[in-house]
């Protein structure tokens, strides 16, 4: 049948994306896999040699790697529930009828934290949480050592992550709430005035695709979180805020051991893919 799209057209449409993906994504990935199988230190290029899975063995038995991974998941486990709770709260408030102008302004202002560059957030944090001159201590009337104390520094990272990404969760969930057919929600409200029942049985099914997207995106973002922490604490004090991406950067670009850093990155990639598949299998259901 002549109505079919020709092969050429298909190739012309898909080709550029496939090429771009191959050049930007696939080729560096394959190169990283190749590097991870070699002793490859930028300052010892004369000694580059194939060492099989030795780098992977080093990573898997390295306490520093698993500690950094643990810290990263601890950040995810503390900041994500906060973001979901606060985001859902904001979305439900914005979903209520009335006060159109205020809600429009609120929606607009929600975009601001997301539009702030990660590195700038870190620098802002440094200034605001400075023990002596920071506005936070001034407001609290306290002399809290935020950046130089291990637990406080971690709490500060959680705070900034929540500040920056709660609006994103709120906007995604708000979009989900607007998907609920008006008559269904209205009928539910006639049946019960319990907001939890409506949320659980009427709204939640429509929120699930958004929630899964948020889970996947925020997990991936947290696993690769670098700029904000680097500018704020540089992984310190000690290694109390050294997330997995900071460790990889340190090994790859400060120790210059690109082989080991590549092995760490490949393992991180595998963990991310497994998690993403898990999220989709457990949570995702078509409405």
């Amino acid at each position: 049948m002549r109505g079919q799209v020709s092969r050429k057209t298909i190739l012309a449409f898909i080709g550029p994306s496939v090429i771009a993906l191959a050049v930007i994504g696939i080729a560096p990935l394959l190169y990283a896999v190749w590097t991870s199988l070699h002793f490859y230190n930028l300052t010892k290029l004369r000694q580059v040699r194939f060492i099989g899975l030795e780098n992977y063995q080093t990573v898997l038995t390295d306490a520093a790697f698993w500690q950094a991974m643990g810290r990263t998941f601890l950040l995810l486990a503390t900041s994500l529930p906060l973001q979901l709770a606060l985001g859902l709260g904001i979305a439900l408030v914005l979903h209520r009828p009335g006060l159109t102008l205020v809600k429009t302004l609120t929606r607009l202002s929600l975009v601001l934290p997301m539009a702030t560059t990660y590195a700038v957030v870190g620098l802002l944090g440094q200034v605001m949480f400075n023990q002596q001159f920071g506005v936070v201590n001034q407001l609290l009337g306290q002399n809290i050592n935020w950046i130089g104390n291990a637990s406080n520094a971690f709490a500060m990272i959680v705070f900034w992550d929540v500040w920056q990404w709660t609006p994103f969760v709120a906007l995604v969930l708000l979009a989900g709430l607007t998907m609920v057919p008006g008559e269904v929600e209205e009928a539910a409200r006639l049946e019960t005035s319990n907001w939890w029942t409506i949320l659980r049985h009427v709204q939640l099914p429509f929120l699930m695709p958004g929630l899964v997207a948020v889970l996947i995106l925020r997990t991936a973002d947290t696993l690769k979180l670098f700029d904000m922490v680097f500018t704020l604490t540089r992984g310190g004090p000690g290694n109390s805020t050294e997330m997995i991406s900071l460790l990889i950067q340190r090994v790859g670009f400060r120790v210059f051991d690109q082989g080991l850093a590549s092995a760490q990155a490949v393992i991180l990639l595998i963990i991310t893919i497994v998690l993403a598949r898990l999220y989709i299998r457990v949570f995702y259901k078509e409405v």
Partner: protein
Amino acid sequence: MKLRILACTTALAASAATGAMAEWSLKEAAAPYAGTTVDVIFLTRPGYDAIKAMLPAFEEETGIKVNITDHPYENALGEQVRDFVAGGDLDIALIDLVWIGNFAENEWILPLEEVQAKFPDIVDPALDMDDFFPLVLNAFGGWNGKIYGLPFDNYSGLLFYNRCMLEEAGFDGPPETWQELKDVYGPALTKDGKYAFALQSKRNETQSADSFARMLWPFGGSFLDADFRSNLLSPESQAGLQFRQELMAYMPDGIVAWDHAETVNAFAQGDVAMITEWSSFYTTMVDPATSRVADCVGVAPEPAGPAGRKPALGGFSLAVASQADEAEQAAAYLFIQWATSAANAREYLERGGVPARQSAYADPALAERFRFIPALVESWQEGVPEFRPRFAEWPEITEIVQEFGTRMMMGEISIEDGAREIGTRMEAVLERAGYYSGDKPLAQ
């Protein structure tokens, strides 16, 4: 090794001088290379601003263009390594003393004598290598018996003290020893929200160089013993690290998050009575625009420990990059020679730089204007070149020291366990590098 370097460089300077003394001029020497552009990385620090201000005179006289890219210290090594590995544009290497083994072993930089032999006409007969402080020349520019770079941005650790605070507490001068600083000055000056001392200890090179190493050497400790095995568990090293822990009682909270900026600032605000900092921060402390205590600043050599005065040593040399083409190598050499020359040292000093030329400090009147000079000159008489080992493995080892050094200070790990952990990991790095199998000479 020092003697060999000195003999070699003196001979070179002397041979270059014969017959050329009278007629050599920068303009003529540079004429064949006019129009050449050389690329170099600079740091955002006072010494670099000083040379930048002087640069137009050089460019006008030689026709050589110097293309400078500024980087913060923490990025400078990575930027240069990537450039050299990729065969990039850099014609001059800016070398922190702990990078020199790395750069020399990778042959990214050329020995000075090789450049001078290649371009004999551009060697200034007045170069006078003997005029550099020998310790500084060897530590900043020398590696394994050869001189590669000329000392450019030069530091020694100094004790900066707030004379007014000390006098108020009844002291008529700074402490002579670390013990005195802790036991006598510490309790007397730590009160009313003010602290006796601050030791910058942030987890980066500051932790290794300014904090950890600073407490090892004066107490007789060191990173490595003669066989390149860890010496961190020796009674002397342990005493130094233990001392640092005890000294923290007289420092502000969260000192493990303090870098140079926080430390200098706390001193300049009058919150801390004493700090041990690089000579290059002197201008910040005495400038009323940046310091509340400008009139009270006193400068002394770092206090002595049981093993004597072993002040922190740090600084940068400039060397010709091997990846540069012939004209760029010659132009690069001319710039380095000019920037570090005895003739320009005075102006460099007056504009905020710290030259490594002995002749620059000869004028006694200068010590009145630059109060750090006597202490600096004294410090450069008895420093330790391997204050931090300068071999190619330092970038790996410093990361280990930074992590466990900070954790020791925070009390997350004991001094002994931390030192053992650093030692084990450090030896593993050195083992891999081939120091124990005899593949590499035990040079640091």
